[in-house]
C-alpha cells in the first residue's frame, strides 16, 4: 500500500470565489461587519424643556443650549438652559410634593411606582441605550449590557426597601430628609441618575436633579418615563444647564440634602457651598485606582481585567484602574501580553455593536487627556498606542499604555479620566500596598492573585472604598460604593445607600 500524505492546500485564495479577489499572501477577509444599532428607535425632538412639577416647561428666559453627539460633533437637540428662577420653581414643586403627597404615602405605594419605573426602563431599554450612546459617546455594548440594565436593577433593588424601612436600621425609625438636590456627571448619565433617584424616592424624599450639560438627554427621556409611570407631579424634577445652575441648586435654602458625583475640584466647591448649613451631603469624586497584579495571578484573565479596568467607557470612570501595579518578576511578560491585547481593541462608532472603545465625551475632555498624555511623554514615560484607525470626525483617543512610569510622574498622580494606563512595578506585597495607597484618592482598587489569604490581607490594608479581587469594574445595587480621602464620603448602593437619604430617630 502506498502511503501518500496529501498536503492540504494553503488557505490563501484557492477555494475562494474570484469575486473576493484573494491572491497569494493577501490578508484574510476577516472583518467584523459594522453592526450599527438603529438610531430610529430614538425619536429625538428638536427641543427639550425642563421637567418641573410633572410638566415640561421652557427656561424662564427661554434660553437653550445644544447637546451634541461626540462621535460626529453633530447637534442632537436644543435643551432648556435653566435659570435660578427655574431652580427655585423646581425646589418648591419638590417640597410641595414631598409634604403633601410622596412623604405621606405608605412605603408599599412608593414601591409600586419604583417597580413600575424599573419595568418601564427594561421595556424601553433599547431606546435608552441608543440615546445614551448617541449623547455620551459610550459604546452601545456597554450602554446595552451595563448602564441600562444596572439602572433598572437599582430601581428594582430600592423599590424593595420602600416598604421595609422599619427593618433597615434596627431599633431606629427612618424618616425622609425632605428634598434632595442631586448633581450627576456625564460618564454614566442614566446610571448615576438611578443611583441618585432610586434610594431618595424609596425613602420618601423628592428630588431636583441636574444632569451634566454634555449629556442631558437620557435624563429628559427619563422624565418622559416618569410621566408614563404616573409618578405624582413634583416627585422628580429635572433642571438642565451649566455648572452654575448646579451650584445654585446646592446653595438653595429649600434643599435638605445634596448628593454629587463628579470631579474632586467641583466636589470641594460644593462642600464649601453646603458648609454652615444643616444640609446632608454625600460626595462621590475622583479616583486613581491601583490594579495590582501579583506573579501568581491568572495572567490571561488579569489582562482582560486590566483592559476592562481602564478602557471600559473610554476610561471615563471614576473608579477606573488607571494605575497598573505589576510585580516586577512578571512585568515583561504581562506588558507583552497587554500590548498584544490592545492591538485587538476596536475604537470607533459608539453605536456599532463591535466597538470596544467609543468617543470621548467632549472636546474639552479630549484636550485634557491629550495634555496629560503629552505631559507623560515629556516626563520620560514610555508611550505605547496600538495602530488602530480613528474616525475622522468626533472626539476619539487611542487606547494608551505608559510603561517606565515613576510614582512622581503626573500621569501616576492626576486623574486623567481617559483611556490612559500608567504602569508601575513593585517587588513585594508591602511595596504594592504602599504605592497603591500613596495617592490623595481612595475610591477603588483591584487585586489579582490566586492566594486567598493575600486578598484578605490586602483588602484590609488598602485605603479604597471598593476592592475587587480577580475582577474589575463590577457593580451591583446591593453593594455599597464610595470613597476614602479625596474620593469623597458617603456610600451609594445597598442599605448604606439608603442610609444617605434618611434621618434616623429613636423609636
Amino acid at each position, binding site marked *: *500500500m502506498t*502511503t501518500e*500524505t*496529501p*498536503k*492540504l*492546500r*494553503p*488557505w490563501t485564495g484557492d*477555494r*475562494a*470565489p474570484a469575486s*473576493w479577489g484573494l491572491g497569494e499572501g493577501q*490578508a*484574510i*477577509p*476577516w*472583518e*467584523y*461587519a459594522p*453592526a450599527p444599532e438603529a438610531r430610529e428607535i430614538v425619536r429625538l425632538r428638536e427641543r427639550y424643556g425642563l421637567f418641573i412639577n410633572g410638566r415640561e416647561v421652557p427656561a424662564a428666559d427661554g434660553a437653550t443650549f445644544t447637546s451634541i453627539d461626540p462621535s460626529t460633533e453633530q447637534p442632537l437637540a436644543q435643551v432648556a438652559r435653566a435659570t435660578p428662577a427655574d431652580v427655585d420653581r423646581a425646589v418648591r414643586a419638590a417640597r410641595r410634593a414631598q409634604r403633601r403627597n410622596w412623604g405621606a404615602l405608605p412605603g408599599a405605594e412608593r414601591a409600586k411606582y419604583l417597580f413600575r419605573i424599573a419595568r418601564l426602563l427594561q421595556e424601553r431599554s433599547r431606546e435608552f441605550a441608543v440615546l445614551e450612546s448617541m449623547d455620551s459617546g459610550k459604546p452601545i*455594548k456597554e450602554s446595552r449590557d451595563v448602564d441600562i440594565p444596572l439602572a433598572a436593577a437599582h430601581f428594582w433593588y430600592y423599590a424593595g426597601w420602600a416598604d421595609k424601612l422599619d427593618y433597615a436600621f434596627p431599633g431606629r425609625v427612618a424618616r425622609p430628609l425632605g428634598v434632595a438636590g442631586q448633581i450627576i456627571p456625564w460618564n454614566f448619565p442614566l446610571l448615576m441618575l438611578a443611583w441618585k433617584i432610586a434610594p431618595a424616592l424609596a425613602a420618601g424624599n423628592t428630588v431636583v436633579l441636574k444632569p451634566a450639560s454634555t449629556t442631558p438627554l437620557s435624563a429628559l427621556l427619563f422624565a418622559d418615563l416618569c410621566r408614563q409611570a404616573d409618578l405624582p407631579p413634583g416627585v422628580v424634577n429635572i433642571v438642565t444647564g451649566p455648572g452654575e445652575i448646579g451650584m445654585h441648586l446646592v446653595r438653595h435654602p429649600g434643599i435638605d440634602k445634596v448628593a454629587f458625583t463628579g470631579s474632586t475640584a467641583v466636589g470641594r466647591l460644593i462642600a464649601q457651598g453646603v458648609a454652615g448649613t444643616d444640609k446632608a451631603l454625600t460626595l462621590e469624586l475622583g479616583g486613581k485606582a491601583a490594579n495590582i497584579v501579583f506573579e*501568581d*495571578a*491568572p*495572567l*490571561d*484573565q*488579569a489582562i*482582560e*481585567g486590566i483592559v476592562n479596568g481602564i478602557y471600559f467607557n473610554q476610561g471615563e470612570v471614576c473608579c477606573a484602574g488607571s494605575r497598573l501595579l505589576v510585580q516586577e518578576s512578571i512585568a515583561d511578560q504581562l506588558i*507583552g501580553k497587554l500590548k498584544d491585547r490592545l492591538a*485587538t481593541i476596536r475604537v470607533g462608532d459608539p453605536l456599532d*455593536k*463591535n466597538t470596544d472603545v467609543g468617543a470621548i465625551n467632549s472636546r474639552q475632555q479630549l484636550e485634557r487627556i491629550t495634555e496629560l498624555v503629552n505631559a507623560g511623554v515629556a516626563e520620560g514615560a514610555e508611550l505605547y498606542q496600538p495602530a488602530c484607525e480613528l474616525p475622522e470626525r468626533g472626539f476619539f483617543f487611542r487606547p494608551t499604555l505608559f510603561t517606565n512610569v515613576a510614582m512622581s510622574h503626573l500621569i501616576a498622580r492626576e486623574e486623567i479620566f481617559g483611556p490612559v494606563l500608567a504602569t508601575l512595578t513593585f517587588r513585594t506585597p508591602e511595596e504594592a500596598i504602599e504605592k497603591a495607597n500613596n495617592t490623595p484618592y481612595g475610591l477603588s482598587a483591584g487585586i489579582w492573585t*490566586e492566594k486567598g489569604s493575600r486578598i484578605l490581607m490586602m483588602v484590609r490594608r488598602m485605603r479604597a472604598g471598593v476592592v475587587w479581587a*480577580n*475582577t474589575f469594574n463590577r457593580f451591583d445595587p446591593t453593594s455599597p460604593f464610595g470613597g476614602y480621602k479625596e474620593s469623597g464620603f458617603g456610600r451609594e448602593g445597598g442599605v448604606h445607600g439608603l442610609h444617605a437619604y434618611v434621618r434616623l430617630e429613636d423609636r
Partner: protein
Amino acid sequence: MTTTQHRDSLTRERANELIRAWDARPGTLGSLLGRVTAVDQVGVEERVEALRRRSIKKASKLWALDLAIRMIDLTTLEGKDTPGKVRALCAKAVHPLPGDPTIPSVAAVCVYPALVAEAKEALRGSAVRVASVATGFPSGQTFREVKIAETRAAVDAGADEIDMVIDRGAFLAGDYRAVFEEIVEVKEAAGPAHLKVILETGELETYDNVRRASVLAMAAGADFIKTSTGKVQPAATLPVTLVMLEAIRDFERQTGRVVGMKPAGGIRTAKEAIQYLVVLYETLGPRWMTPELFRFGASSLLNDLLMQIEKERTGRYQGPDHFSLD
C-alpha cells in the same frame, strides 16, 4: 584552572540533583508545569461572553463558512460503523454539495483504526486526509504496548493523522510523567502522521487542569491539542477552547513551536462555528486561520454550514432535505 572547573562541575551536578529531588519528577517536567499560570474561571467565561457578540456578516461570513468547511474533521466513531457508512462519509467529505464545485472538501475524515484502510481507499485522489483515533479511544484504559501497537497499525493502514487520548487517570493521579512519556512514545510510533492529543476536558473538569494538560501535551510533541472524544459531556465549549488557545499562544511565545487546535464534540451550528473562529482570531490572530492549525471535530455541523452558505448566496433557506444525510 582545571581544578576550579572540576569543582564547578561537581557543584553544578549536585545542584541539578537537588532540583530533580525537589521536583520529585525526573527531567524538566517540574519546571515545565511550575511555569503554567493559573486560570480564573469567571474571567474566562466573561471574555467568551463578550466575544460571542462579535458580528460577522456578508463577504467575511461567507469566507468564514467556507473556511469552517475546510477545517472539518468529518467524524464517525460508532460501534455500528461499517465500510458502507465510511464510504458514504468519504463521498460527502470530498464533495459536500454535489454539483457545486465552489464548495470545498473538508480537511479530513476521522474514523476508528479498523476502518482506516476503507477510508483511505475511498478518499484516493482527493486532498482529504484520513484521521484515526487510537490509543484505546475513548477511555485510554489499556496497556501502553497496545496503544503503541494500535497507533502503528493505524498509520500502516494509511492514517495521515492520529487522534490519541491522554491517560486521564494518570493525569488526575498526579502522574504527569506517565502522561508525558506516553504522548512521546505515541508520537514516535505515529512517525510522519500528525498527532492530535485529546485531553478530554470534560473529565479534567477545571480550567487549571486543562491548561496544564495542554502545556504537557505540547511539550511532549502534540501537533494539535484537542478538547474531547465526543463521548463525554461536556465536550467542546468556547471557554475551554479559549483556555487551550491561550496555552498555545504562550507555548509559542516561550518555545517558538506552533501547535494547532481542535475543538470536537457538540459543535452543530454554523453560528457556533463562527463564534469559535472569532475566539481563534482574537486569541491567535490570522496565522491560525487555516485547516493546518485549526479543525472542528464534527459531523452534523457540515450540513448547517452548507445551508447557511446557500442562505448567504440566495437570501433564502433551503429545506433540510436538500442536504444529504450520511
